[in-house]
């Protein structure tokens, strides 16, 4: 079998890999993509997108529950859980088909199989353990992604103990769920199942939910979750699972006090591990750090001609970060002018629980830890006209500025549609905005985005509606 030869080969068709492939093709590289399962990767098939479809259904359910507030009298209604899941799968299927079309349109050769480095510029593609192709390429980009972390004793079994994958594709609606981990993935599932009526318990080992977010935001979010009836245990650890026939007894240790919680299902959302095994890194000079591939600011590994992007390199492990890395990596290979390394402090993060949480940059505590003297602005949605009209007044926008230079160091939001709004701050932050530019920006009325303006004004004692 002779080698097929390409300029660029991407291993992994997730949001990092397929974007890199399209960009490479656009720049005139003869490009191939190797994907072992689904084009679009976890994000599109088992992550970001299908969960948003699920959460949309949950949101509609909440609105129906509160329909009387808006003047509707609905005597009875019900939902078909199977249809909710079906819709989510259909959305994923539609988008995965879209990626296939994009590959074709951009003349990217797609290999169906598992890619493995064979040393200098060569890659083996195998399907079901059998080699189906050998590919040679000047540039190989690893975009192999990550999978759910497994904690000892908490091993998913596909029936009683779920990972994200089973949690978004269950046979039936569980009556009770215990979610281990309150990061973005854990809290989104907790939100989904709670809004559809399940008893939900969240167990978080740190002292607060969504520990990467600003402490104030995480406190407000927790209050809202509890108001919805979620049970939240922080500083808590799952010590043991007793798996029954159709339920699990979870032994939880909260600051030394043990309790037993009986639930139908457990969702394990305790982080990710990079997919860096069995891809041939041992045949190269590539270095790993805690399982993740070590790269420089241009995503180059220690092996000349091999690059890595997305969840298989250090985090944050977010789809948009992976895509951006893919573009930087390819444009740098092409030698385009005006390619800039990514600034981590400008990567936004969004969680689609209710209320939504979104942030960019440094939290207040992190900023102080780094020696900044800060000016902090806060604006609650209760002071925003549009939020009142929508009936969505829970939440806060918090902005953190460097008192010396006026640099926007961070923005942290909890409340309605904040995942759509954070981008305003991200644009500003990427352009190195100061408080004045934001103050001089005219925000349209009536929008909930006006609260973003007010938060900035508040940092300098100039807020109007507070």
């Amino acid at each position: 079998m002779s080698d097929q030869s390409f300029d660029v080969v991407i291993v992994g068709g997730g949001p990092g890999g397929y974007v890199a492939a399209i960009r490479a093709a656009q720049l005139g590289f003869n490009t191939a993509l190797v994907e072992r399962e689904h084009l679009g990767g976890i994000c599109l098939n088992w992550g970001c997108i299908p969960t948003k479809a699920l959460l949309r259904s949950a949101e509609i359910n909440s609105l129906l529950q509160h329909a009387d507030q808006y003047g509707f009298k609905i005597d009875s209604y019900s939902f078909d859980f199977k249809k909710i899941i079906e819709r989510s799968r259909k959305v994923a299927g539609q988008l995965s088909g879209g990626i296939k079309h994009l590959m074709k349109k951009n003349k990217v050769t797609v290999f169906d199989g598992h890619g493995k480095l064979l040393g200098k510029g060569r890659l083996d593609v195998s399907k079901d353990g059998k080699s189906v192709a050998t590919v040679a390429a000047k540039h190989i980009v690893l975009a192999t992604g990550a999978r759910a972390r497994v904690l000892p004793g908490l091993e998913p079994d596909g029936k009683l103990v779920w990972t994200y994958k089973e949690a978004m594709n269950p046979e039936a609606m569980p009556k009770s769920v215990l979610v281990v981990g309150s990061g973005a993935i854990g809290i989104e599932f907790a939100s989904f199942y709670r809004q559809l009526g399940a008893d939900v318990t969240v167990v978080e080992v740190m002292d607060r939910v969504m520990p990467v977010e600003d402490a104030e935001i995480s406190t407000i979010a927790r209050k809202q979750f509890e108001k919805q009836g979620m049970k939240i245990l922080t500083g808590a650890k799952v010590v043991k699972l007793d798996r029954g026939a159709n339920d699990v007894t979870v032994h939880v240790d909260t600051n030394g006090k043990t309790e037993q919680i009986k639930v139908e299902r457990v969702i394990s959302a305790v982080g990710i591990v990079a997919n860096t095994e069995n891809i041939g890194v041992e045949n190269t000079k590539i270095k790993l750090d805690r399982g993740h591939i070590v790269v420089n600011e241009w995503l180059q590994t220690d092996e000349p001609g091999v690059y890595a992007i997305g969840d298989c390199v250090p985090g944050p492990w977010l789809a948009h970060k992976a895509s951006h890395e893919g573009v930087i990596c390819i444009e740098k290979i092409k030698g385009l002018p005006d390619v800039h390394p990514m600034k981590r402090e400008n990567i936004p993060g969004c969680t689609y629980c209710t209320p939504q949480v979104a942030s960019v940059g440094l939290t207040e505590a992190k900023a102080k830890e780094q020696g900044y003297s800060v000016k902090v602005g806060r604006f609650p949605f209760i002071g925003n006209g549009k939020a009142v009209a929508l009936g969505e007044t829970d939440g806060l926008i918090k902005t953190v500025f460097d008192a010396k230079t006026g640099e926007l160091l961070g923005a942290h939001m909890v409340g309605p549609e904040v995942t759509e709004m954070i981008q305003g701050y991200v644009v500003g932050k990427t352009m190195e905005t100061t408080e004045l530019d934001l103050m001089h920006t005219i925000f349209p009325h009536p929008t909930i985005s006006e609260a973003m303006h007010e938060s900035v004004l508040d940092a300098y004692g100039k807020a109007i509606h507070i």
Partner: protein
Amino acid sequence: MPHNVLMPALSPTMTEGKLAKWVKNEGDKVKAGDVIAEIETDKATMEVEAVDEGVLAKIVVPAGTDGVKVNSLIAMLLEEGEDASALNTAAAPAPAAAAPKTVTPANQPTAESAKPAPSMALATPAQAKSAGRVFASPLAKRIAKEKGIDLSAIKGSGPHGRIVKSDLDKAPAGAAAPKAAASSGSFAPAQSSVNAQALADAYGIPYTLAPNSGVRKVIARRLSESKQTVPHFYLTVDCELDALLALRKQLNDSMDGLKISVNDFIIKATAVALEKFPGANVSWTDDNIVQYTRADVSVAVATPNGLITPIIVNAANKSLKVISSEMKDLGLRAREGKLKPQEFQGGTISVSNLGMFGINQFSAIINPPQAAILAVGAGQERVVVKNGQMAVANVMTVTASFDHRAIDGAVGAEYLQVFKKLIENPMGLLL
């Protein structure tokens, strides 16, 4: 409450200056707008006006002090009726305290207009990157302002060469080093490898020493840099002056007190030729050719302190009469060292005329970031050949130096052709 009078910055790049003279004495009443002191920098002398009303209670820095740092305390004002004892309660401010609120230099360009304007005069240390707007992030602008960094001298690493925060980390506070000097040590200000003084000592040649003035040092540095980094080429053309001289006589006879010089015609022709042929009205930057859309002519003027180049802005659209009177005023104030920074910083081309010394022809050094300079020789009666016959005509030789990075030989030649035609058919300059 006593007001502190702080040493003002007369230009974005100024870090210190000489307090030349106190115009008011201790105990004098001052009104807002009164000139209270004169300050000298390496470029110019400027008057300092009071902003507040009051009594000049205490002069902290005596007249004649050199090297007074910007923003250091130079005097204190008391409000009318305030007791002098109030002075003691006023804490002495840190040198880099608040902006000098109580005084502004007379006619100082505002920070806003001064900052983006590239400094183009010979006697300006910062080398302009490009004309017009300097692209920098809001944060970079803020930090530059606080640290006194001249953004026009910094190379941006952001999108489209935009200056971002990290670019400022490397820049020295106060005044940024010119780009060329910063990027390559070999182009550092000409430090002669041979020390003339040591040699003179060795050979027993008698001499005296005169310390280099600020202007002298700046001229030395800027012109060394220009000659070493700008690839010059030279084109020479002869222009017949008879028609121009006749027209000038007619104009000057027609109006009392009007005395338009040949040089005024040359300034106007230089600018009009640039308007007709913009290919020579350019500057080189690493990323772009800056195409100016207005012709501003820097005119070299010799002063007791050294060379300075006041500017006739938009000379193509000014009448000879206006150019003539502006030039008289600028020349006079240049010799007195009283030009304002905006009057000698800028310009898109230069003219240097040594005709009055009987010089026939010479080549000048380009005044960066400009890309052309005209060296004008004396108008002399010379024998010329016309239609196969010898004849006598007034002829002036002009040699232009061009920056080959931005202007090619044929482009320069075409510009000079247009210039020559204007000089030899000067009626066009009256329009």
